[in-house]
Each structure stands twice: as structure tokens, then as C-alpha cells.
């Protein structure tokens, strides 16, 4: 039975169909090479950006914005960036990538979404042109560095510092668990501003800086060996007296720190996670339906056993709820509604439900599901990230309760 398509326009469905064909042809055959680290996800990201005209869209948007700004129409220029952001299209990209490789989607999202969009949102025109456009067209690899060894859930207790020295900031410290860090060209790094006049509160604030590979004192570690998301390289960033030009302070104003901006990114990340979960659960459901009809035990397909049916029905219910969350998150983004408790609730529910769905799918496959070729055990390991990354479940619960109980 074809599914009821809810909340997607005819255009969205066309995009989705084109993306699915592309992923089947370009991503599916390299899934295990990505898992084993034999190929990196960035060549694939470039192909995706070029084939689907993402790069063309980014360049077109930027050219029109510059034109309108030159003509003195600031409002129209700002409108170009707003129109470029289409949360439904972003969601479809992520959903279809996650059908085959949540890790590839994570690497893609961290580069274009976290790094590229951060610079596009808050950067100066010069910063957007130099750093955001190459990342958003997937020519360059971006990463976004907030977490530190001693500042995980308590992210803003960070120890990385920036100190003004003439025309440069001197950055010291380290970041960890940063997606794409081992291979990134462009780094957005958060640091606490230290100044010779500590009475200036703004200067103690958290700021973001744009760093480039090759800056003396900037180095990265080897990719970590993780439980899941093997297709997405994760690692550390080390900063030892890195001299960062003043022009690389995100947004260019010391009076305008970036802590709120970072919270906004975290909220955006939470909003995007249900889409990743939807791609995974849809794939698991399809695989379980197919396998349970093919696999015979006791003389009949296992799909005829009620305990298997229950798992498959549950997978469908989970898919339905996650899809509704996806549409709610898209709607919130389209309407500019920023509310952390909704974003946290969506991420909390979808992450947990996807891990559970993955375990059920492995169970439907039985012994075959425990072997990686079936493609379902990878999904469980990948999905486990959603209960930890972008704020642990416990942190999400805290945000929800705090917002409900404040005043």
C-alpha cells in the first residue's frame, strides 16, 4: 500500500523521489566503505550539492543579495537569505540520506547546517563570502566546535579563551567530540573573551571565531572510534596560541557575543533530529516488512506470527508520530517560532523511539539482524547518538521542566 503523504507539497514529493533515486544509486553502494572509513563522506556531499543544484541555489542567492544590497535595498537583501532557508527541503535531504547512512547525513548536516548556516546567520558579508559560501556549496568541509573535555552538557563553562593582541585574537584551549573536525577546512570555535580590562563584562562573554586549517597552532586529532555514526568522522580540535585575525570574530562586534547564537544552533540541531530519525525508521519499517514476508520458519513467513506483526505495527506507529514531529518542527522554523521545550520534546521522543525501533527491527531479523550485512544493527548504533548528541536526554528533560515550571 502506498502511504498517505501528509504535509508535503507536490514539489516536495518530487524532490523526495529524485533524492531517493540518487541515494539508492550513489549512497547505498558506498555505505560499508563509509562505515569502514575507506571513503570519506565529503566527496558524496559535493556530488549531492552539485547534482541537485544546491550549490547553484547558494551562489544564486548570494549574487542576488549582493545585487540588492548594492542597489541599497537592505530589506530585500535580507529577504534573499530568509527565502534561501527552506526547512522542508532541508528535512527531505536529511530523511533520504538517513535511509542509507545516518553518518553521511550527520557529516553533511554538521558542515552545511551547523558551520555554514551559523556563518550565514551571524557573519559579516565578508565572512559569508569567504567562509559560508564554500561550505554551503560543499566545496569545503566545515565543523562547529562548542563541546570541550570539561564542558559537555555544561557547555558554557568552557575553558577555551580568546585574548586581544593588536589586530589578532590569541586562542587557547581544546574542543572535543566535534563532527568533521579531523578533515574540516573551516572551523567555527567558541571561546571565552579575556581582556586586559576584566571589568568589561562583554569581554568575558562567549564569542565565536572562524578559523581555517593551516593557521599556526591549530591542530586536530585522529577520528574517534565510536559506537555508531562511523560514516561521520568525529574528533578533537587543539588550539595553542592560534593567532586569529580580528576580521574572523563571528559577526565582527565585540559588543555582540555569541552565546545566544550558540543556543539557537543547539535548538536548530534539536529541530533537525526528528528528520534524521524519520529516515531511519522508514527504512527499518520497509526492511522489516520485506524480510518478514520472505523469511520462512515453521513452514510459513514470519510475517504471519503475531509477535512479529506487533513489532512491525509498532514501527509504523513510531514512524507516524515522528513524521508529525517533523512537520511540527518544519512549521515552527517556517514561522520563526523559537521554543526550546518543543524542540527538546521532539528530540527526546524521536531519539528514544528510534533506538527502540532499531532494536525491534534487529529482533524481527533475528540472527541475521545481528550481522551487519542486513543493515539494521548499524541503525541502532547510529540512532543511539540522538539520545546523547546535541544535549543528552537528561538535559532535554531539564530544559522542558525548566520552561514548564518557570515563574
Amino acid at each position, binding site marked *: 500500500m*502506498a502511504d498517505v503523504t501528509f504535509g508535503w507539497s*507536490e*514539489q516536495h514529493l*518530487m*524532490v523526495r523521489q*529524485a533524492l531517493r533515486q540518487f541515494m539508492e544509486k550513489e549512497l547505498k553502494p558506498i555505505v560499508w566503505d563509509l562505515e569502514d572509513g575507506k571513503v570519506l563522506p565529503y566527496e558524496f556531499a559535493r556530488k549531492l550539492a552539485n547534482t541537485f543544484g544546491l550549490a547553484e*541555489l547558494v551562489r544564486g542567492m548570494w549574487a542576488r543579495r549582493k545585487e540588492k544590497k548594492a542597489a541599497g535595498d537592505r530589506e530585500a537583501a535580507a529577504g534573499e537569505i530568509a527565502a534561501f532557508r527552506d526547512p522542508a527541503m532541508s528535512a527531505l535531504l536529511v530523511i533520504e540520506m538517513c535511509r542509507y547512512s545516518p553518518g553521511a547525513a550527520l557529516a553533511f548536516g554538521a558542515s552545511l547546517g551547523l558551520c555554514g548556516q551559523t556563518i550565514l546567520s551571524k557573519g559579516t558579508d565578508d565572512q559569508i563570502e569567504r567562509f559560508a559560501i564554500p561550505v554551503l556549496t560543499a566545496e569545503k568541509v566545515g565543523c562547529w566546535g562548542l563541546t570541550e573535555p570539561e564542558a559537555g552538557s555544561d557547555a558554557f563553562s568552557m575553558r577555551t579563551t580568546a585574548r586581544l593582541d593588536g589586530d589578532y585574537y590569541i586562542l587557547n584551549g581544546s574542543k572535543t567530540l566535534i563532527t568533521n573536525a579531523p578533515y574540516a577546512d573551516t572551523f567555527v570555535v567558541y571561546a571565552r573573551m579575556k581582556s586586559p580590562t576584566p571589568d568589561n563584562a562583554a569581554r568575558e562573554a562567549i564569542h565565536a571565531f572562524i578559523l581555517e586549517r593551516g593557521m599556526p597552532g591549530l591542530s586536530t586529532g585522529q577520528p574517534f572510534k565510536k559506537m555508531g555514526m562511523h560514516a561521520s568522522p568525529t574528533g578533537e580540535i587543539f588550539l595553542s596560541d592560534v593567532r586569529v585575525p580580528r576580521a574572523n570574530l563571528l559577526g565582527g562586534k565585540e559588543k555582540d557575543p555569541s552565546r545566544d547564537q550558540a543556543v539557537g544552533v543547539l535548538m536548530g540541531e534539536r529541530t533537525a533530529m526528528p528528520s534524521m530519525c524519520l529516515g531511519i525508521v522508514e527504512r527499518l519499517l520497509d526492511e522489516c516488512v520485506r524480510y518478514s514476508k520472505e523469511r520462512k520458519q515453521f513452514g510459513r513467513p514470519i510475517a504471519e506470527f503475531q509477535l512479529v506483526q506487533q513489532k512491525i505495527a509498532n514501527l509504523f506507529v513510531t514512524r507516524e508520530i515522528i513524521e508529525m514531529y517533523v512537520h511540527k518542527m518544519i512549521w515552527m522554523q517556517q514561522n520563526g517560532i523559537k521554543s526550546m521545550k518543543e524542540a527538546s520534546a521532539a528530540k527526546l521522543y524521536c531519539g528514544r523511539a528510534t533506538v527502540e525501533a532499531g532494536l525491534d527491527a534487529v529482533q524481527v531479523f533475528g540472527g541475521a539482524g545481528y550481522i551487519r550485512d542486513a543493515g539494521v544493527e548499524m541503525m541502532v548504533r547510529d540512532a543511539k547518538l540522538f539520545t546523547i548528541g546535541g544535549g543528552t536526554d537528561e538535559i532535554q528533560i531539564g530544559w522542558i521542566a525548566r520552561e514548564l515550571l518557570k515563574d
Partner: protein
Amino acid sequence: MKILVAVKRVPDTTVKLKLKPDGTGVVTDGVNFEVNPFDVIAVEEALRLKEKAGGGEVIVATIGSKDATQQLRHGLAMGADRGILVVNDDDNAIDADVVARTLKAVVAKEQPTLVLVGKQSPDGESNQVPQMLAEHLGWPQATFASKVVVAADKASAEVTREADGGLETLSVRLPAVISADLRLNEPRYASLPGIMKAKAKKIDEFTFESLGVAKAPKVTAVGFFAPPERKAGAVVASVEELVNKLKNEAKVLG
């Protein structure tokens, strides 16, 4: 260069179709539809020929219900310039000849230099429309094309066909009808900007009446039935038993 491409809405080729219990056709409720994959290849070839010619127009046309607009949009998203829908609500009420005569009427309106179509569709598998259309138009035809080269003066085209023993190259005067085979090209994906632009592209609607085409099929489907299910095999204990069965039961050995 003006190129007309005929496309057909067909059930998703990867799904298992079910017959209606009364044998009047296949169940289409809940089935996903797509553009006939051979027609997608024809659209791609038309776009490439237009690009190579440095200009022109690619028109995608279909005969079908309003839902077939989706398949026209797919062609428009790939890069075709506009679409034509001839509205028909009952696929069983027309045959290849009606389709060919309808396309002839569209050709009369549009006057293209070339008509490109998929060699056949995966639903009916009849492989008749391109040949019939060429005959009705009195145009040359080149079927099962695996390579198409249009001459610089656009007066002729060289078409390579895959025959059983090798390749055959034909030269056809233009205008002509060319049908696309599997290895003609690898179609592009519809891009995001392409899909966005497709929404604004024009689709003209016609009826058989407005085109002056008599909807009088020469062939009608009498009934559909599934092939008999294959029976399970038997295990034999010895070669002697096997030979005996082949001789006396299957009667395939003398």
C-alpha cells in the same frame, strides 16, 4: 530545434501489481506511479540535443488523467520547456492506435523537427506507438535508438540501433520519429532549482474532441489473468527414477 517527447504515466516498475478480482485490469489504488523509464531517457536525449543545438524547445506531452500532470512536471523539472496534457480518464478505453493518432494531432499543432519516445512502456509492453505514429505522419522512423546524432543542418539524423548481432546505423530525414532504448543515455536527476522552476512552466490541456481525434480503439482488452503458479518440484532418489519420470511422466525423453 523543436522536439516533442511523449511520456506515459505507468505504475512504479518495482512494485508487484495485483489483478482486479473481476479480471478487468490491475489494481491501481495505493500504487505509486512514475514516468515510463524509457520515456525519461527520451526526455534526457531531447534536452541534450537542444543543448547541443544551442537552443530550441522541448515539449513533453502525455495522454492521461489529471494525475498524469505529475509525470509532465517530472519532465519539466528535468528541463523541458512546457507540457501538453490530453485528458483521458479511462486507459482501457484507448489503444496504441488512438494514442498514435492523438500524438499525430499534437504534432500537427506543434510542428516539431523530431518526436522522441520511449521504445515501449512497462505496463502494456506493446511497442507499437512510435511505429504507428511514424506511419500516420508519413515520417521516417528509427526505433530502439542507442545513439542519436543530428546533422548540423538539422535536415537528417544518424541513429544507431542495437540489433541482435551488432549495431545498425540508420540515416533518417527529419522530421522523424525516434524511439529510445535503454542504453541511449543516463538520465539526469531533477534538481532542486529545476523542480522549483517546473511549477511555473505552462501545461496546455486538450481533449480528444478538441484535437479532432475519434476515441475509437481497434483493440480492446477482453480480460486479464495471472499466469498459472509454478508447481513445486519433486525429489527423486536415483538417476534411474529421474530418467523414468522424464520418459514416462514429462515425456521429454524418447
